[in-house]
């Protein structure tokens, strides 16, 4: 077992977690994240994202496979793995009675940051994350967005090699979400920290992630850069809403050669990846069949289309 760092900041090999009652939360997933990359785990609630993060942060014991953070095995070298990482959890993880500064100081001490460096680091983070007006107040007085900024600051005090952000913007209002995304984007631009971000928000994944893994029911169904994943369906899709049965309409369109094998239906909505074909041509063909539709439109391919194509489910459904 080596103690020297490998090239991959995160190395996951057939990692799995099965709970009592034969509940397979994570089913043998594998991926590697090079140092400095922002890697996303995209999927709805229940896909296994938080369980994966729990195993990588050693708060959940894997039932199979292995994982390493900066070369340290999370099961057999858990202390070393925790020393090189930090987590911002989905739920609030704070002592409400303590001040923000006390939280940062506690984190620095537990991660054994030298006092002088901790003091300078805390001052830097307070400035960068706009916490100066809050930092000496009890956390109980913070808003949701302020508390989340404090948690990000706390996670960065120890200069982690690997930073986990577990659904960092869930439950926040749109303005606060936008501000927080700016903060996280700043992290990826300025630091060499590897970031693993879990989310079910498409715009977060597209904006922040260099690569992402799409998870569904405990499995990784696709890995790649957002543009690469979208490119598998083409740049554009035609979306139509049927008056009657969407599946029957899809079968008809496939029979007429207007929809390829990558087309899919969700309820009454049929989505047809164009894959280089002209939207006008396909729409004209659909109208010529005189099928009964509520609407027919063309638009850019989104990660939701990718997810639906891969899994048949919608990311926003469980949001």
């Amino acid at each position, binding site marked *: 077992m080596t103690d020297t760092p490998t090239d991959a900041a995160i190395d996951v090999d057939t990692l799995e977690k099965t709970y009592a009652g034969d509940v397979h939360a994570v089913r043998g997933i594998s991926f590697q994240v090079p140092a400095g990359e922002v890697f996303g785990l995209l999927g709805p609630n229940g896909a296994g994202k938080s369980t994966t993060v729990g195993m990588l*942060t*050693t*708060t959940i014991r894997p039932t199979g496979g292995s994982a390493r953070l900066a070369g340290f095995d999370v099961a057999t070298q858990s*202390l*070393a793995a*925790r*020393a090189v*990482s*930090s*987590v911002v*959890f989905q*739920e*609030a*993880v*704070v*002592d*409400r*009675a*303590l001040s923000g500064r*006390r939280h940062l100081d*506690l*984190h620095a*001490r*537990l*991660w*054994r*940051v*030298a*006092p002088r*460096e*901790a003091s300078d680091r805390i001052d*830097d983070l307070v400035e*960068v994350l*706009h916490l100066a007006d809050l930092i000496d107040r009890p956390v109980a007085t913070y808003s949701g967005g302020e508390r989340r900024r404090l948690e990000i600051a*706390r996670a*960065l005090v120890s*200069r982690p*090699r690997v930073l986990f952000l577990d659904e960092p913007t869930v439950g926040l209002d749109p303005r606060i979400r936008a*501000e927080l995304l*700016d*903060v996280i984007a*700043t*992290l990826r*631009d*300025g*630091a*060499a*920290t590897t970031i693993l971000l879990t989310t079910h928000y498409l715009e977060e994944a597209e904006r922040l992630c260099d690569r992402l893994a799409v998870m569904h029911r405990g499995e990784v169904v696709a890995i790649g850069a957002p543009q690469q994943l979208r490119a598998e369906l083409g740049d554009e899709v035609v979306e139509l809403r049927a008056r009657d049965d969407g599946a029957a309409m899809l079968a008809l369109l496939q029979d007429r050669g207007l929809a390829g094998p990558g087309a899919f239906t969700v309820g009454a909505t049929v989505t047809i990846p164009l894959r280089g074909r002209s939207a006008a041509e396909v729409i004209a063909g659909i109208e010529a069949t005189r099928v009964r539709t509520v609407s027919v439109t063309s638009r850019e391919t989104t990660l939701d289309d990718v997810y639906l194509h891969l899994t048949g489910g919608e990311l926003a459904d469980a949001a």
Partner: protein
Amino acid sequence: MTATTPDLALVPSLPRSRRLGPVLTLAQRRFQLSARTPRELVVPLLTPILFALVIAPALKSALHTSAEYEAFVATGTIGLLIPLNTMFAGIGVLVDRESGAQRELLTAPISRALLVVGNLIVAFAITGLQVAVLLVVARARGIHFHVTGSGFLWFLAAASLFTIAMYGAAETLAASVPSAEEYIGRVPAIAIVPWCSWRARCSRSPPFRVSSRGSRASCP
């Protein structure tokens, strides 16, 4: 917001602080959460004072017993203070879990056992303070403790081990119940059993001889 943050760039690891180890850091945190105001320190001390100044004399009068009974109550109260105080200290574990703070601590690069030790230090200190206050007030009330060297050491060892064992029970119970309400409901039943054992032990072989003014008596 600033677009670039050069200060956040990764730097080589610097020498780590040894000045305040993780155990003391955890204990300091627990103390800050347990005693944020002077009231939170003073109020727990009222219990032993109440026993020594009010309850013991009242029982003696009500039961028409001799002065030795106050001594019996004084030493018996220690056996009640320790399990009650340590068991209620376990509520802090539940609060940590419900607030989410426990998850942050579990991701720290420290042995998980230190989380328990940090809490134990504070529970031990507060319990020790209560016992000390009880003995001081009992002494002021007129109960004389004729302490022998071996007796004092026996008492210290017994009380320390009792405190550690009861706090272990508290942590175990806190880890196994889902809510603070259920935990509180179980505490009296769990605390009473060792108290009875303490009193029985005290009555068979007193750790030190006690007397009130004008008479010497053993702890019955």
